[in-house]
């Protein structure tokens, strides 16, 4: 599934991007070292963090998109950096668990 399809189907807020990517999996986590080690390229990464280091980790792990859950705040500097590094950042009021249920329903 493409990121734009996901945005439409789940009514996600587009914060940066979308830089069109195909999604193949899901990773959930807020400890950045774990994300570095475990997230796979083309995953969507669900987190509560909205700071610049999230953009760096997303770029390094090559995730398809970051989805900030529970409408957590996202720093303007992070948005700017995401645009520069072509990292897609989306946001939703949903909790991670509710979002995962919906992602499963969509076949991810």
């Amino acid at each position, binding site marked *: 599934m493409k990121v734009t399809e996901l945005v439409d189907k789940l009514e996600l807020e587009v914060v940066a991007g979308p830089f069109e990517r195909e999604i193949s999996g899901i990773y959930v986590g807020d400890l950045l*070292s*774990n994300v570095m080690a475990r997230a796979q390229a083309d995953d969507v990464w669900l*987190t509560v963090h909205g*700071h*610049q*280091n999230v953009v760096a980790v997303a770029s390094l792990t090559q995730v398809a998109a970051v989805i900030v859950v529970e409408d957590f705040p996202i720093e303007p500097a992070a948005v700017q950096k995401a645009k520069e590094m072509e990292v897609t950042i989306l946001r939703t009021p949903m909790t991670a668990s509710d979002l995962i249920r919906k992602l499963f329903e969509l076949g991810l």
Partner: protein
Amino acid sequence: MQEQILIQSKIEKGDFTRGGEVSSSLKDILRKLGVPSDTSRRVTIVTYELEMNIIIHSLGGEITVLISSEQIKVIAEDQGPGIPDVEQAFQPGYSTADDFVRGMGFGAGMGLNNVKHYSDQLTVETGQGKKSKFIASVYF
């Protein structure tokens, strides 16, 4: 092939806004060189963790990454204050990071553990009140 420098960069204490820049630049260089993706991934993880370790815990330092036909070597040197108990520092979950750092998703005691896990060889020179030097090698 003689050892060549791929990247050498100074890293400031507490400079979170630039956290991951060295690793990102390195990743681009490795891709252009055609380094296999698994090797690149391991080197990138090791470099990222050592970069963040300097930012979070040290007084500032420098990362140098070298390549030869056998390996990619990541050298992280800092200006102190040193690690009193290295064995403890490598225990998963052990951390001296403050609440601010933990609040950003760092300092959960997994960083050095990742360095050890993803490198083939690792040496650490440090001690209370001393400069620290990590040399992590990832073999081809």
